[in-house]
């Protein structure tokens, strides 16, 4: 599960002399031949060897060279991806007046970022801070719990033979295809019979299950924990729990971080589940809180707190973006394992 980039094949030392055509044909040869290209025997047509040497060889599939046109075209998607975030950052520095009458992609007359942040945190008796703490609770208990269950379950499926193993596997894989939102309304009705709605449990319990996480851990455990190692531990008299913690868990760490990352982001960003489960603003996560502020701002007579919504949105995404940037190689390994699933 290598996460580093493929070595860039266009190192300067790779440059071969000769005309572009020759260089191209050379790189189409086998590696051994390419190491010692036979351009000397061929006649450089029209150009002097020196001029040709200065010219860089053309890009080939095996020996690619960065291309400005391709970078520019792909850059359009880059601009598309980043522009709304730039808009968000810029507009979180504006007060209400600037927000309404200055150009959206440039700064307004005043710099209000810190004022906006402190007002966002203080508004409505610090509701935002309360929602932030709720979100952290849901992320740590829900997302963390989901990771624990997935790691234990994936390890069991990969490393033990027991009756019902295949059935569990089939049911869970089938469940991957069941979208969470289809279950949300029946789950709400059930939880409300059980008196769980409007409590943190209503958000935490459904967050504990990540079929995708279980699948990921199962593939990962099958790959990274050798049976011989477990066997050796058992022969030495180590109990199953002890074997798991002392031997398997350290080997499972990279997969565990990946699953943790995915389930934490899913919990942090969750909207539908808390929307139906929680009516009491005391237990709102950030996503619901922002939505409530927006609803208030759009209602006639409600205080139009657009500046707070924009700043609050920025504050909501900063932690997740930081976590994402710091741990980005885990995303990739998770997605590459996920794309194996068939």
């Amino acid at each position: 599960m290598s996460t580093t980039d493929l070595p860039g094949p266009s190192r300067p030392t790779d440059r071969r002399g000769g005309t572009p055509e020759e260089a191209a044909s050379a790189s189409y040869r086998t590696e051994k031949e390419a190491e010692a290209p036979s351009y000397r025997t061929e006649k450089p047509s029209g150009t002097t060897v020196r001029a040709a040497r200065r010219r860089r060889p053309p890009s080939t599939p095996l020996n690619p060279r960065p291309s400005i046109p391709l970078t520019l075209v792909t850059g359009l998607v880059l601009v598309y991806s980043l522009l709304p975030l730039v808009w968000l950052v810029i507009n979180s520095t504006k007060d209400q007046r600037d927000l309404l009458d200055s150009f959206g992609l440039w700064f307004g007359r005043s710099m209000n970022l810190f004022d906006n942040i402190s007002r966002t945190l203080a508004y409505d008796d610090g509701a935002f801070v309360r929602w932030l703490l709720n979100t952290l609770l849901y992320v740590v208990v829900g997302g963390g719990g989901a990771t624990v269950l997935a790691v234990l379950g994936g390890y069991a499926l990969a490393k033990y033979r027991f009756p019902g193993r295949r059935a569990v596997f089939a049911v869970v894989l089938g469940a991957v295809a069941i979208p969470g939102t289809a279950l949300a309304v029946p789950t709400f009705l059930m939880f409300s019979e059980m008196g769980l709605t409007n409590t943190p449990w209503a958000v935490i319990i459904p967050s504990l299950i990540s079929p995708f996480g279980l699948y990921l851990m199962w593939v990962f455990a099958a790959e990274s924990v050798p049976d011989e190692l477990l066997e050796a531990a058992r022969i030495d008299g180590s109990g199953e729990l002890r074997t798991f913690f002392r031997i398997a868990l350290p080997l499972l760490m990279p997969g565990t971080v990946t699953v943790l990352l995915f389930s934490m982001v899913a919990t942090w960003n969750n909207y539908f589940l808390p929307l139906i489960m929680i009516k009491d603003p005391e237990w709102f996560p950030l996503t619901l809180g922002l939505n409530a502020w927006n609803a208030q701002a759009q209602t006639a007579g409600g205080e139009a707190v657009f500046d707070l919504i924009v700043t609050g949105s920025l504050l909501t995404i900063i932690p997740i973006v930081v976590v994402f940037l710091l741990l980005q190689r885990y995303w990739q390994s998770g997605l590459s394992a996920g794309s194996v699933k068939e």
Partner: protein
Amino acid sequence: MTLLPTSVRAASPPPAPTPRSRRRLRRQSLAGWGFLGPFVAVFALVFLAPIGYALYLSVFKDKLIGGTSFVGLENYTQALTDPRFWEGVGRVGLFLAVQVPVMLGIALLVALAVDSGRLYGKAFFRISVFLPYAVPAVVASLMWGFIYGTRFGLVGNINDAFGITLPDPLSPSLVLASIGNIVTWEFVGYNMLIFYSALKVVPRSLYEAAALDGAGEWRIVTSVKLPAIRGALVIATIFSIIGSFQLFNEPSILQKLAPNAITTDFVPNLYTYSLSFSGQQHNYAATVAIVMGVITAIVAYTVQLRGMRKG
């Protein structure tokens, strides 16, 4: 590391136990269930029980007079002939037919560009395009909703600056496209990374062989790279289809900004939601959720069969 052997190896059980003792087998079962038990217990509570409960609810009806009574398949007949439900299904169908190909097309092109090694700053590309995936749907919808706005959004800015009137992205005729744009923005990077991860494990010897046969860059893409990542393409398509059928967050949040354009039955999920929370029609809401789940499963399964067969 190749893709197929991974899944094959993972699918096969660990080596058969040596006939050393039956006690070991029992110990294996016990430990296996011990580790798996917590997951299965919670899974039963939040997956299996709600499905069962929904099925149970769907065959009853809460009448004003006489209370709850068994009505058999009456709710299903009602759902299957409910124009408000089918309008929503039609809308997500249209959404699916346009948004999913556009999104996956862009994602695939970016993945191929990043993988080709022909971009300057390819790591920056990869991270930046993926970044929106980390943004919650609520924030993405609010952000884009404001940008769409004619009051202090970019659309309003452009109108003021050029003295023109762009069509309102939040008007009834354009709002579905505007939602499509938000969803595309959120998930292009995610799908790009799925494709890119799959491309990265294609053995380079395949490119070398193709190049030896005289294939150019584009030919290698169509004849080597795309067939090699077929699995990832099918998976991404299925995930996107399921996602489209479950469209909820974006219309639900934009509803406050465009109350006239987004009705309570705009998409099936929004319909289910308003049935159970505004209308208190729990039995019917459960029925609609089941019907929608079945439709989703059928479409996703069909795509999977077709996608795999062509290989």
